[in-house]
């Protein structure tokens, strides 16, 4: 066995952990609000798929991971990358195609990757990273480095056959991989019930995976369920499948504004008012007297400054020079 890098975040108390998750969820929300702003002001090229509403899933799961554990992410990936430790300034720089970005501007919003935080990459092919995550778990097992891999994907990926191929492989080889299905109810512009036969969890239990469903708006519940699957996988007890039931507050992408043809406004309103992961955690923190509102406001002010600075950095950062276009095609 090789030496295990100690987890960077050292959990001391439940309160500290809850506050850390609060801060991280809020960071993602504020980040995404600025993405929306940059995009609508035509400062951001390409496409932007916002994670607003789903923050508890990435944060709850990543809170249970070590820095050297692996994740793979999706086209809606900003939240996963930030929760795994990416820095907002280099994220924004990548989103704007700047050289200071994580991928030197070559990946963009849908392809953030960062070896330093174990981020194997966001992927713009739906289910495109299921093999990569499973392979990282395979390497971790063979190299005996104690790492696990978490594969985030939306429920749209349930339609791809490759997911079932790798779940079969993962269970056969008892790989330390956890498949996290974020069911935000909509596969682009179509309700998942129109594309998904049977029960989602059965698709994982059919292969013998340990499978659990969780309220994806409750970060503490996500963390608890995620931790159990992650630690189980780390002990060599095999792969897991976490179904996180969540909701995408905004459109499939920024610009998907007229949404009534596929979902009612009342539904959006209800999720935002009743089931917001940040509001609900705030309420719990206050009720439990683990934080007071001044403390939470201070966190928000701090993050606001940080995010605004990160945007400023990215906007001012230079583009890559044209000769970089042919760099890194081959290693």
């Amino acid at each position, binding site marked *: 066995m090789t030496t295990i890098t100690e987890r960077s975040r050292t959990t001391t108390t439940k309160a500290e952990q809850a506050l850390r998750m609060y801060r991280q969820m809020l960071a993602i929300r504020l980040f995404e609000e600025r993405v929306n702003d940059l995009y609508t002001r035509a400062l951001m090229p390409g496409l932007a798929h916002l994670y607003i509403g789903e923050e508890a899933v990435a944060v709850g799961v990543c809170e249970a991971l070590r820095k050297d554990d692996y994740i793979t992410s999706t086209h809606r990936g900003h939240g996963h990358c930030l929760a795994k430790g990416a820095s907002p300034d280099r994220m924004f720089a990548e989103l704007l195609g700047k050289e200071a970005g994580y*991928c030197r501007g*070559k990946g963009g919003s849908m392809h953030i990757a960062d070896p330093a935080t174990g981020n194997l990459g966001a992927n713009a092919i739906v289910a495109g990273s299921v093999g990569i995550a499973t392979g990282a778990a395979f390497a971790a097992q063979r190299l005996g480095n104690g790492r696990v891999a978490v594969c985030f994907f939306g429920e749209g990926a349930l339609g791809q056959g490759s997911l079932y*191929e790798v779940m079969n492989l993962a269970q056969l080889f008892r790989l330390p991989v956890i498949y996290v299905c974020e069911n935000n109810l909509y596969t682009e512009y179509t309700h998942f019930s129109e594309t998904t036969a049977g029960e989602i969890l059965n698709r994982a239990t059919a292969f013998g995976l340990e499978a659990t469903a969780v309220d994806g708006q409750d970060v503490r519940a996500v963390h608890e369920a995620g931790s159990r699957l992650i630690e189980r996988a780390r002990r060599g007890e095999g792969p897991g499948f976490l179904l996180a039931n969540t909701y995408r507050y905004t459109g499939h992408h920024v610009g998907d504004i007229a949404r009534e043809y596929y979902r009612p406004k009342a539904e959006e309103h209800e999720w935002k008012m009743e089931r917001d992961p940040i509001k609900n955690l705030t309420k719990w923190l206050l009720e439990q007297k683990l934080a007071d509102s001044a403390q939470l406001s201070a966190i928000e002010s701090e993050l606001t400054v940080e995010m605004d600075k990160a945007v400023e950095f990215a906007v001012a950062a230079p583009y890559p020079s044209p000769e970089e276009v042919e760099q890194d095609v081959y*290693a």
Partner: protein
Amino acid sequence: MPEAAQREVTFAQAIREALAEEMRRDATVCIMGEDVAEAGTPFKVLSGLVEEFGKDRVLDTPISEAGFTGMAVGAAMTGLRPVVDIMFGDFITLTMDQMVNQAAKVHYMSGGRWKVPMVMRTTLGATRRSAAQHSQSLHAWFSHVPGLKVVLPSTPYDAKGLLKTAIRDENPVVFFEDKMMYKLKGPVPTEEYTIPLGVADIKREGNDITLVATSSMVQVALGASTLLEKAGISAEVIDPRTTWPLDEKTLIDSAKKTSRVIVIDEGYGRYGVTAEIASVIAEGAFYDLDAPVKRMGAMHVPIPFSPPLEDATVPTENSVFEAARALCNRN
């Protein structure tokens, strides 16, 4: 080329030796595919490897080409050097997302931060009476994609030296073996050697016409050149050995010397390897050519089963001989 008085081994054994030597040299090299362990593949190319290296490193997988190829991509990114076995080249169609959208692009999309040092070994070639789904030569498909390297060995010596290099390469390399050539014998030294990718080999020197041939077509071109010799035509036979990187200089220099060129490849000619090489030569040697560059590939039909029909689909010694004679105005 190897010195005289060497031992002769078959093409299959050369492949096996390359794998065994690299697996002894580097503990991160592993093999995965269908029936690669005790069965040693239907072609028996891998026989004996599982006995030496164990089932952890010679891994039998389910019939899930997309799944285990994807797994290899992730494993390659995180510390292993997988060699994936795709039994018939026709089955690469099932791995296209993993190779084209993932393996080929990971390094570039991540701004050079993740690497994918993997090899995909697969087969090509007709005339085995295997019909339309087990007989294609689809190497042009991968040659088309930036980020991949494509190797086409034509002798046991080349197969061994090129495969060792491919395994050590930091990029995804696709290695096509002619399934009809596995029993072909040729000299292979006992001492260690490697062959760089991107260096063509002059298999036979000549002055009147250049026959550029790949993989299965090299022996055909050499046979044709013997017939041509008897007809008073001196043919030079050049094997590019890799379609990417492509040794353009050696091809162009030979064309300039002989002034006539036929490009022979078992893939389909239409938008294929022969088209690309003919174009490279036409651009690079136009003013030295005495005839248009001629292309010879598989007929534009699905490979038929019936032997006389199948035999009509691929270039032969005689068809190349006739075409060369015509090009030299000697018929």
